[in-house]
């Protein structure tokens, strides 16, 4: 079973997200990164095993948006679906994210309801 890469600078948000998904019966293994830098390293090592990226926006060192700008340019990884999970949830933010990545898999605004997150990512786990 493929892995889900969770990228968020808040440990608690990563834990919450994983808890919500495991609680919904999702059995995939999770990889975790605290910022875009760490995520790129992880992606380089594991990209063949990753089926989905859950990405925060505001992070130190490299933001989620900068990470995504990099990922979309790399053919080896740009087919991996990305779902943004961010506290910034205005229409403008969503548009910016889609401008950077027209294939964006979804945009979930924190704090989210568990079912909302699960509904968005379910199709990428089939």
């Amino acid at each position: 079973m493929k892995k889900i890469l969770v990228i968020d600078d808040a440990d608690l948000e990563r834990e919450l997200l994983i808890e919500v998904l495991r609680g919904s019966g999702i059995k995939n293994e999770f990889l975790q990164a605290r910022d875009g830098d760490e995520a790129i390293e992880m992606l380089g090592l594991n990209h063949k095993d990753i089926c989905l990226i859950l990405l925060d926006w505001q992070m130190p060192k490299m933001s989620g948006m900068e990470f995504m700008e990099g990922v979309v340019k790399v053919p080896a990884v740009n087919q991996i679906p990305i779902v943004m999970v961010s506290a910034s949830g205005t229409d403008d933010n969503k548009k910016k994210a889609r401008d950077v990545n027209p294939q964006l898999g979804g945009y979930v605004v924190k704090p989210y309801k568990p079912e909302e997150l699960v509904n968005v990512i379910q199709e990428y786990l089939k």
Partner: protein
Amino acid sequence: MAISAKEQELLSYVNLLVNTVKKLFRDRGEVEFSKDPILTKRNIVEYNGRMRADGMEKFNNPTFVAAINFYVDAAAMAKHSALGALVVYVEQDYVATMLKRLKYPPIDDEDNKAMCDACGALCNIIAGAFKSALVAGGYKELEMSHFSSYRNTAPNGVEFCFKEYDKYEICFHIDNAKRLVLELTMAPVPKGR
């Protein structure tokens, strides 16, 4: 006493923030504050060009502090030219309880790093919701920083707009005890997109 247009503007952001926090706590954790938040205008205490943020002053007890800045656009953010700052203070003894009430996973309350992280996560969701409320109120979309968090005090202070001299302190009470203190300073936010 009449207040200036600028003060009125700051107060309108404060009111937006108060309503945002009330909604967030109600929706997320079914938490109702036990009385109306107490708003106090204070002077910004500056050192080395940054705003002092001291948690011990808020609760007279160990406190976790988290801060997020707002910027007019990405270029201003890159230059660290802040338009505003939101600082969140939660007393150490209440961090784990508050996050539990907001349906976050349990936190090890003896782990400073986990407590800082939790306070940062709280600051992040408040700041994000506040930013959305500003947009809904007809203001320009602001850029928002990632959070920084500390125990007791932000040793190097917090970025703020150097043209601002005032901030608002907002105290929220849960079960009749002061449980959450926010500080907001904000230069006038441009209207529209």
